[in-house]
């Protein structure tokens, strides 16, 4: 989970979403190998995918990687012990071929593959796994977010090498998302040992590294990086994975990422046939749909995406030690703390209109804290608030908010006029538009809403440091594992935006949510675990600490040159990258 600084850009952060192609490349690839299967005489090897991305990678070091433009690349070069299947969302073996769990889920033994090579020819062994955890992730001199995930109640995992291809993890307490977390990329010990010893790891594998020095085990290796222009990844001929027919994967020879400065250039290049993939904004749909046939591409609508947008009110009742007052105005706080006030506002959000205007109908109303695409843990049976201004007015009136002096603006019981500031980040035109629609409806309820779009960092410092805000529209990128959002939902979390870092839960329901997250992370029974997270989603929808708006559809266009494409909302178009191959006539 991560706050989205820009826009609702679909599934950009999943390994490979920004794809494009180049028209006629002159290089001809002859068969690198011939399928063993007698009745399968098609040569699947060769060709290239051309994708576009709007920002440069910031590093090639997966431990230091902080943003999606980086992880999109490192996710192809490196691999973890497990991985999430893009289609079924199940955890499947990757560098580990199998595992077993002992003693109440505290001891996990992984059996590693013995046929994996680093791209420089050295063998991958248990030493690399132990090095990655003990000397990189848990190294106090290397700041990284993986450590925060793999430190439970202040305690680290212990790793034990049983033999060259067997590793045991000893957990301090039970940790339900453990296997999913094991998709953590493993790095080569023999290459990085030296830089760790010299305490230079934080500056290793930055964007100035020579491509041949980046050593991974993944299906592709870095061939070239030209800042601001393109990244070229080349097929790893020693990649271990084989297809069902016994063909060595991957099929596609090369992946090219073009770095473009904005999404409109991306769109033009896609229409021009230069790139193979384009992640659509709702507004692009009417433009692209009629061209599907003539430009030889297909638009896939895979369902709701993961990036939420919500309205949150400041409910921070703690006292600012400097001013000896609350951070937000005391009167305003009393409104925002009032559940009826928040309920009335939830009824005043015209989600249908937002989907219609912003996304050309290609969006989904969001009621639950998890995205409908997140599969198992998504609970659709939560409280919903349909758009009904009369109902909203009635709720406000019953709660004591109505227009007493007939000037068009409602007042609270003490006669204070309802007026507050609404912020969002200026980088997101979608959020600015959402704010516009919401503001108009709130004004017709008689509230005075002053809207301002702030620079992202400014907004962040308000949310996490100065707390001087009333209402904010912001979003989070979601995922399929609810526990990874703990920092948002736990009352002591710094991202518990409406009242961060509480010493003890301010309300009963926040106390219950804390319990749910503490139990959920230790519950190894999937069914019981789901019940807990179902309850959490119901609580959030009842208490409305955040008021959800809409989720954009995960919708993208792909040139018709690939076989074996299985697009999903979680994995995007190319989650099964190594199995995809290019039709013969598009290889040249």
């Amino acid at each position, binding site marked *: *989970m*991560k*706050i989205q*600084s820009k826009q609702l850009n679909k599934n950009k952060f999943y390994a490979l979403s920004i794809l494009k192609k*180049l028209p006629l*490349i*002159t*290089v001809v690839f002859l068969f690198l190998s011939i399928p063993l299967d007698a009745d399968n005489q098609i040569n699947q090897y060769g060709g290239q995918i*051309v994708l576009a991305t709007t920002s*440069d990678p*910031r*590093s090639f070091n997966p431990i*230091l990687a*902080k943003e999606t433009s980086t992880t999109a690349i490192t996710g192809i070069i490196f691999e973890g012990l497990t991985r999430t299947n893009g289609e079924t969302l199940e955890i499947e073996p990757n560098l580990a071929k199998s595992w077993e769990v002992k003693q109440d889920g505290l001891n996990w033994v992984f059996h590693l593959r013995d046929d994996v090579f680093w791209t420089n020819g050295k063998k991958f062994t248990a030493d690399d796994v132990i090095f990655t955890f003990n000397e990189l992730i848990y190294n106090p001199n290397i*700041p*990284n*977010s993986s*450590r*925060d*995930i793999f430190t439970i109640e202040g305690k680290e995992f212990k790793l034990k090498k049983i033999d060259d291809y067997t590793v045991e993890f000893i957990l301090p307490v039970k940790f339900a998302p453990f296997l999913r977390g094991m998709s953590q990329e493993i790095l080569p010990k023999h290459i990085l040992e030296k830089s760790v010893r010299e305490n230079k790891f*934080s*500056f290793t594998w*930055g*964007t*100035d590294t020579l491509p041949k020095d980046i050593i991974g085990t993944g299906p592709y290796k870095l061939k070239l990086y*030209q*800042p*601001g*222009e*393109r990244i*070229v990844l080349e097929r790893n001929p020693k990649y271990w994975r084989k297809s069902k027919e016994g063909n060595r994967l991957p099929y596609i020879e090369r992946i090219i990422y073009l*770095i*473009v*400065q*904005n999404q409109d*250039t991306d769109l*033009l*290049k896609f*229409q*021009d046939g*230069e790139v193979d993939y384009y992640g659509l904004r709702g507004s692009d749909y009417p433009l692209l749909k009629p061209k599907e046939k003539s430009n030889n591409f297909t638009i896939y609508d895979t369902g709701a995406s993961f990036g939420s947008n919500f309205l949150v009110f400041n409910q921070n009742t703690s006292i600012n030690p400097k001013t000896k007052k609350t951070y937000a105005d005391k009167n305003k706080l009393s409104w925002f703390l009032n559940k009826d006030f928040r309920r009335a506002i939830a009824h005043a959000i015209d989600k249908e209109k937002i989907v219609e205007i912003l996304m050309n109908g290609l969006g989904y109303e969001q009621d639950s804290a998890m995205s409908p695409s997140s599969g198992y843990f998504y609970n659709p049976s939560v409280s919903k608030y349909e758009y009904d201004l009369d109902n909203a007015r009635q709720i406000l009136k019953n709660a004591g908010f109505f227009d007493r002096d007939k000037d068009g603006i409602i007042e609270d019981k003490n006669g204070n006029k309802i007026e507050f500031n609404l912020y969002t980040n200026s980088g997101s035109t979608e959020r600015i538009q959402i704010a516009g629609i919401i503001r108009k409806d709130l004004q017709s309820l008689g509230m005075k809403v002053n809207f301002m779009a702030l*620079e*992202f*960092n*400014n907004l*962040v*410092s308000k*949310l*996490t*440091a*100065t707390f001087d805000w009333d209402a904010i529209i*912001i979003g*989070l990128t979601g995922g399929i594992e609810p526990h*990874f*959002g703990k*920092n*948002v939902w736990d009352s002591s*979390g*710094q*991202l518990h935006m409406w009242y961060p870092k509480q010493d003890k839960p301010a309300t009963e329901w926040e106390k219950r949510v804390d319990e749910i997250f503490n139990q959920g992370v230790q519950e190894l029974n999937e069914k019981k675990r789901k019940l807990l997270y179902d309850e959490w989603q119901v609580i959030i929808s009842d208490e409305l600490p955040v008021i959800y708006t809409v989720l954009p559809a995960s919708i993208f266009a792909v040139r018709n040159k690939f076989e074996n494409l299985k697009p999903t909302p979680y994995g995007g178009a190319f989650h099964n990258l190594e199995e995809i191959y290019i039709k013969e006539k598009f290889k040249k």
Partner: protein
Amino acid sequence: MINYILRRILIAMPLLLVMSLVTFLAINLAPGNFFDSLRLDPQFSEETIKHYESLYHLDKPVIAQYFYWLKNLLKLDFGYSFFYNCPVKKIIAGRLLNTLLLSVVSLFFTWIIAIPLGIIAAVNRNKFVDRFFSLISFVGLSIPGFFFALLLLYFASQTGILPLGGMRSANFDSLSFFGRIFDIAKHIIIPTIVISASAFAGLQRIMRGSLLDVLRQQYILTARAKGLPENKVIYFHALRNAINPLITVFGYEFSGLLSGAALTEIICSWPGLGSLLLAAVRAQDIYLVMASMLMGGILLLAGNLVSDVLLAWVDPRIRYD
């Protein structure tokens, strides 16, 4: 003259120092720092972020950070970019050539077109040619660069003649040497037209105006009265005297070599400094911003110096000693 140049360079030093200090303070006036964006990521703990801050000395007072930067600068170390995880020097070096290529090419075309057209317009004052060039100039001056760039990109996408932004095609590596030159040349056309369009317009007007001024002088009348052929009067006597304002403009444009094309670069996806610095400013990648400000400042001072020296060289009436 040497004395004069040395004196100017000496004066430039404290100027640059003050400039860098003001820039540094101004960047730090903005709320937060680079690592603030991580604060909204549930997977980063506060300790991790503090750790990052201390790694790059962001936890020290602003003025201490400045002196720290200054100290490294004396060792020609421009600092480390948090955004790109790479020394600032290396990032800038990678982009600098691209920006210079674009700037020099467009500067070249601007001058090679604007000067003759300015002369023609001045000589044919108020005739059709002059009016026609004026029209073009006014259009060039008034059309916003970003809009013009988008128009041209749209044109390119409709006709398919020119590539849509960028500097090289995706198949660049498989091209021959001349194929590569041709490929870059194709990519540079649109940004060059955009930059030249507005720069050309101003320059053409200045050339015209300044030549007209000179043509009214009595020594031109004298030259004509002596029976000199008209082109000798114009190209030999008038033009030399009309060139002074252009040299001043040249010095000014020199300072814009690295930053003047920023907007066009961003729209045309040209991998230059423009987009790099925009991203750096927005993300508060301070050392990268500082390095670019420093370069811009040095170029501005150097540009002024060069134009002053050139003026003295072209016009014997100007003396600095």
